[in-house]
């Protein structure tokens, strides 16, 4: 009986979601866990701080090939006699976790938002409008953790890193191209988000939104119409059909708060709404509100953020 955790560690530093998942797995297990990953990442020993005793890396796998990675996870699970397999509910985990579950005929908790209460895992349903408790009926369980659900463990220790030696079969998915669009903070794992909508009146007016985000160390996001009109790139679109996020702070500027937008942001811990229309539905979901013109309010926020940064 043991717990393993599958993470995506590609990138310049260890992704936050990976550190959260290792922390979560070791809390579930009540002790060290084995982490499984792929690609070129260095410095994986550091995952010991979050509770990884061992990290197994398939160096030959470069892309998110669901079949290779599923075999990797299942092979490690068999070798470790794992009864709990933790994944991340992100673009990588969604290509792997349900496959692992189907292969092992294991129950899958898709997007757990915390540690279980008894045998029950809590997850968001109805696009954040309700929560559900899920019980797994199979001997092996797969649990995908939603990003931003727990604090990263800060223990000591260093994990031993070993290469995966088995055969994962041919790659069936190849990466042809990656088009980068800026180097900002990845939206799904951002703790602070500054978002703007049609109230900004045009893409040429985004500079103060970006300035406020930079001052706060926040990611930028936008509403659907703004992405559809190509004022901002599509990967910034938060809402029911875009990215669903759960940051600590969501500042919405010039966004009215249609139900589809709320579905993507209603899990934010603190919501601030700035809108010139006092009847904007978003105010009903907000913790803080300012009725005012974005072009008058933004400079005041920027000034206050500069002052705060100077003080701390």
């Amino acid at each position: 009986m043991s717990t393993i955790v599958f993470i995506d560690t590609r990138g310049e530093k260890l992704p936050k979601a990976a550190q959260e998942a290792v922390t979560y797995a070791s809390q579930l297990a009540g002790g060290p866990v084995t982490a499984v990953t792929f690609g070129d990442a260095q410095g994986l020993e550091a995952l010991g701080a979050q509770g990884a005793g061992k990290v197994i890396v398939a160096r030959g796998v470069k892309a998110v090939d669901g079949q290779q990675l599923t075999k990797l996870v299942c092979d490690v699970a068999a070798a470790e006699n794992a009864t709990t397999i933790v994944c991340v509910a992100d673009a990588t985990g969604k290509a792997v976790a349900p496959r692992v579950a189907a292969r092992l005929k294991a129950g899958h908790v898709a997007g757990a938002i915390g540690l279980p209460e008894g045998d029950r895992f809590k997850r968001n349903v109805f696009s954040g409008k309700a929560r559900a408790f899920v019980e797994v009926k199979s001997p092996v369980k797969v649990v995908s953790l939603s990003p931003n659900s727990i604090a990263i463990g800060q223990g000591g220790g260093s994990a031993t890193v070993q290469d995966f030696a088995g055969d994962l079969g041919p790659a069936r998915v190849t990466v042809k191209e990656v088009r980068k669009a800026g180097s900002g903070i990845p939206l799904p794992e951002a703790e602070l988000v500054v978002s703007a909508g049609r109230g900004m009146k045009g893409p040429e007016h985004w500079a103060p939104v970006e300035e406020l985000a930079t001052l706060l160390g926040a990611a930028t996001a936008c509403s659907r119409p703004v992405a559809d009109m190509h004022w901002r790139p599509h990967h910034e679109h938060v809402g029911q059909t875009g990215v669903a996020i759960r940051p600590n702070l969501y500042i919405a500027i010039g966004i009215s708060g249609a139900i589809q937008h709320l579905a993507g942001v209603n899990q934010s811990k603190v919501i601030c709404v700035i809108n010139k229309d006092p009847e904007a539905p978003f105010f009903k979901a907000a913790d803080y509100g300012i009725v005012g013109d974005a072009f008058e309010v933004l400079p005041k926020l920027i000034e206050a953020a500069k002052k705060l940064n100077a003080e701390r």
Partner: protein
Amino acid sequence: MKILVLISQVPDTTARIAFANNNTQYDANGVTFIVNPYDEWYALVRALELKEAKGSGSVTTITVGGADTEATIRKALAIGADEAVRVDAAASDAYQVAAEVAAYAKDKGFDLVLAGKETIDFNGGQVGAMVAELLELPYVPLASKLEVNGTTATVERDVPGGVEVLELQLPCVIGAAKGMAEQRIPNMRGIMAARTKPLQVVPATNPAPVSATVLFELPPAKGAVKMIPAEEAGKLIELLHTEAKVI
């Protein structure tokens, strides 16, 4: 090209969310059901576009559910699918749905299986990947673009900070997200034609569920919004630091 599109029935996006039987069941009383938007707007419409561009092939939809899903299935036929399959089962978890779809699809020779990225009720995003695993096919989730050239599928997906372009061979399974196609409104001719298009009901294989949703709860009510006058907007930053303690 033979395309299979997974169609799920979900409560309308604006439906009231309430629960019955001591919060163990979704309360469907008075709720209008629709085709899951990701299945309809993106997966189904892209399937139709691919068939139209090629000038040949077929688009079949598959739904796992009771007879009460047939009105929703007819909507998918009205939009343009050639035929529909309903697996007569009341599935209680994603594995059951996927196993029923895979049991039907395994010897039918589909070149492409399309699913929405998730349903808007359970938001699991599991069924497409599970079907792919059970059929031993490659799968890409969250695809915002799909082109098919011969037997090669090219898929784009939004990843944090950019766009990833992937290539894979048919047959494969793709999870459709926003951007893959534009919503089509069925016209009168489509609605009339849908009435006589084949809707085949196949018996369930009834695999055992491996998980159960045992209880629901509504999120705690939000406290009253604290309004700050626009002239003193800077105070918001102060409150976020000292009161909400998020910055």
